[in-house]
């Protein structure tokens, strides 16, 4: 049986699907030819199935570098749920004992998720070298470019680590990467023989719109107008936890909508309950920061509204990509009120060390500065960058970030087809604009004709929540 036939058989038996989604078979075929592969596929197109299936195909361990602990946890949970128990996650959540236990038995796992920080630690790398790694996966590979320089510098070491591991076959996965970012990924990793699989990132069933208000009050009014009409479920994204909490509380107080806020400030307990309530449609709206969504696999989300603009279009495409995975009509609306870019700018500024911080740090590495810039500066110092070289690096980062933010502003202000503009940023041309595409020439878009108008509220039967009923339901 040739490789692809075997892959299809595994797809059938293990995953219960008859055929591959677009991009999956191309990526597996490219991997079977022995090359390293950079695969750009839209969110929801089944990227993780690729490495899971390939692991069964080659019958060797698969190592997956993943940027977020919560994302790792979600993936481990999902694979456990699907019946694969030989999965573990190595990250800062492990206590010393757990980590020692995992490292001692590393060869018993088929899928090993690891954070870039832990991968760079010598004891982990030493153990990994002893594995006969079948596939080395870099999930959310755009982090090398988008976050790598300023948020997760450890991603920049991945090239060195791949070589230290004897260059196992490498798969880079991301949902969004412009040509510039693609080149960035490959050059940082110093890979030479890379096949690229690029799926169209366009999601034609998501209607694109933006709305400008002159102040925050008007913006809230527009938000409430929208959520009073739109079909559920939906996500509203914020850049601050406080605002997400505040608006969730207002929506809750306003009426019958079941809503919750979701951000990194939640406890594990709350995170579990809110995610699962949303999955089971017990919640209709989530007010979230970007912490929500990376691992969420819900296919009937009808709207994604951005109350605050993201800092770049890559994030925007990722976040709106949570909508309409079932292929049905959905909508992505960016709300803007005058001065919002300042919030984004201050987020960016706080993520990049200033010249003054760089000077104080190089004068005395023990100086008190906030955690994130300190971690970055420590990284560059450990990698023998001089003070001036470090300044240059961050000057470039600041410039790139500024340029990225300008693209977001241009998207909001865009005159013409929004989809055409958005896709052009990812080197995709688009000329099929019509009334179901975006709000260009259709500013007062009619939700009814887009099939996004909510019908009369169904009188949803209230779940009985007194303890007798709960016990009866549980047992």
């Amino acid at each position, binding site marked *: 049986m040739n490789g692809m036939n075997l892959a299809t058989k595994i797809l059938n038996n293990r995953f219960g699907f008859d055929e591959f989604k677009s991009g999956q078979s191309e990526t597996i075929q490219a991997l079977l030819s022995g090359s390293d592969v950079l695969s750009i596929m839209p969110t929801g197109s089944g990227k993780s199935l690729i490495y899971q299936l390939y692991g069964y195909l080659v019958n060797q361990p698969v190592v997956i570098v993943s940027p977020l602990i919560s994302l790792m946890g979600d993936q481990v949970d999902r694979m456990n749920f699907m019946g694969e128990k030989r999965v573990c996650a190595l990250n800062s959540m492990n206590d010393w004992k757990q980590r020692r236990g995992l490292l001692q038995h590393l060869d018993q796992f088929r899928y090993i998720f690891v954070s870039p920080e832990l991968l760079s630690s010598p004891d982990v790398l030493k153990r990994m070298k002893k594995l006969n790694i079948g596939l080395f996966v870099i999930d959310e590979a755009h982090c090398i470019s988008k976050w790598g320089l300023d948020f997760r510098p450890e991603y920049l070491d991945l090239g060195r680590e791949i070589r230290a591991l004897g260059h196992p076959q490498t798969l880079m996965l991301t949902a969004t990467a412009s040509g510039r970012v693609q080149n960035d990924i490959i050059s940082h990793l110093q890979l030479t023989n890379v096949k690229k699989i690029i799926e169209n990132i366009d999601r034609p069933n998501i209607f694109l719109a933006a709305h400008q208000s002159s102040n925050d009050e008007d913006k809230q009014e527009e938000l409430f107008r929208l959520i009073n009409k739109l079909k559920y479920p939906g996500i509203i994204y914020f850049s601050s936890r406080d605002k997400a909490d505040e608006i969730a509380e207002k929506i809750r107080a306003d009426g019958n909508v079941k809503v919750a806020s979701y951000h990194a400030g939640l406890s594990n307990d709350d995170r579990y309950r809110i995610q699962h309530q949303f999955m089971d449609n017990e919640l209709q709206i989530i007010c979230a920061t970007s912490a929500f969504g990376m691992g969420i696999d819900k296919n009937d989300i009808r709207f994604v509204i951005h109350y605050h603009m993201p800092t770049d279009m890559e994030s925007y495409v990722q976040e709106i990509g949570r909508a309409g995975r079932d292929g049905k009509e959905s909508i992505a609306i960016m709300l803007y009120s005058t001065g919002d870019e300042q919030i984004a700018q201050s987020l960016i500024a706080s993520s990049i060390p200033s010249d003054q911080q760089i000077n104080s740090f190089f004068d005395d590495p023990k100086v008190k500065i906030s955690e994130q810039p300190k971690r970055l500066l420590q990284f560059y110092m450990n990698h023998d960058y001089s003070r001036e070289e470090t300044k240059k690096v961050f000057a470039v980062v600041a410039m790139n970030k500024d340029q990225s933010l300008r693209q977001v502003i241009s998207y909001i202000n865009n005159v013409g087809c929004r989809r055409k503009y958005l896709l052009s940023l990812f080197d995709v041309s688009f000329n099929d604009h019509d009334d179901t595409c975006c709000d260009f020439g259709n500013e007062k878009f009619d939700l009814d004709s887009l099939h996004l108008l909510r019908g009369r509220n169904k009188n949803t039967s209230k779940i009985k929540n007194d*303890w007798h009923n709960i016990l009866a339901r549980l*047992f």
Partner: protein
Amino acid sequence: MINNTNGALCLLVFSSHQKRRVRLIENLLTGKKTVATLYWAMRYQLLDLLGVGRYFNINQLEINPLVQNGLIMRTDNDQVHLTAAGKQAKEELIQEINGSDLSFALHTFQKIDLNNFKQRFQLLVQVLSERVHHVRQYYPINVDGTNKAFIKKYYRQIDRDQAGALLKDELNQFLSSLEFDRANLFAQELVGFNTNGLTMQQIAANLNQSLFKTALDDLINYAKLVSFISHRDHSIIAPLLNGLSKHSVSTSAEETFTEYQQLRDLKQVEKRRKLRESTVLEHLLEVAIYTPLAGFPYRDFVSYDLENKIIRHLSGIPVDEWDYRQLSDFLSNHLSFFQFRLLEIKRTKQDVK
């Protein structure tokens, strides 16, 4: 009215008649068990709050909003006290929460690791609930790896076909013993078959009460559950308490004190315990803090004479304001910091008595 948990906790831990140190109380809440933290917690009569911050997910007190609202006044270096308005807000808060239930719960919290008990219990409920309905594929709630391993092992040991019914029966009896709202709170948090559970915030909103009160009620519920299962034969929940007992005095300090009682000689204790002098003294202070006045040999360390001299020297100064550095040279030459602290502990216990 203070609605947020952090603010409510601030009201609870600060006082209108005693200046208290913010950093020390934060250390107390996060469970940092140094002698300084324990000593001041004893002075503030807050020893039962050791580690409680973890239950509320709070490790830093947000003082500023209460200062802005005129409820808290800052004095010098990291000390604060409640204003008259703060005092009134605190009284209202204490009225809202049932004081005696709360002290029972906090006392239990010091004896049993309720955080881990709750994790184990909720996972057991989920596992058995899904089992009763023959569901094999579900997402387990997020609990620490060690608790997960504990439940896995326990699950293998019990009679799985009976366990669901036994648990239901036991919970039925327990919940019947609670007030109706408290029982609902307890049940609404549970996760299992077709039940995602509610967050504490959602439960608080349903009950139309503050998150803080809800979280305290939850803590009280779990303390009551511990007491309930401890008095039962053949409880299916009771084995979850294995290894979760907490001791006020650390084992190591206890061993040092036992050695001391036998040897009555610090040098020999150091040798026998292979500890530095400073560690031995810290152990003794820890024991003194947690032991009733008559149970600790104060006289072994501070003579009657010396004690009287010090008391005379410091007469009129409240113990909170005693400062070793301000003793006269003569006295400080005859009295170590260890002895001084021991005297402070003794005076505190005498005052409380």
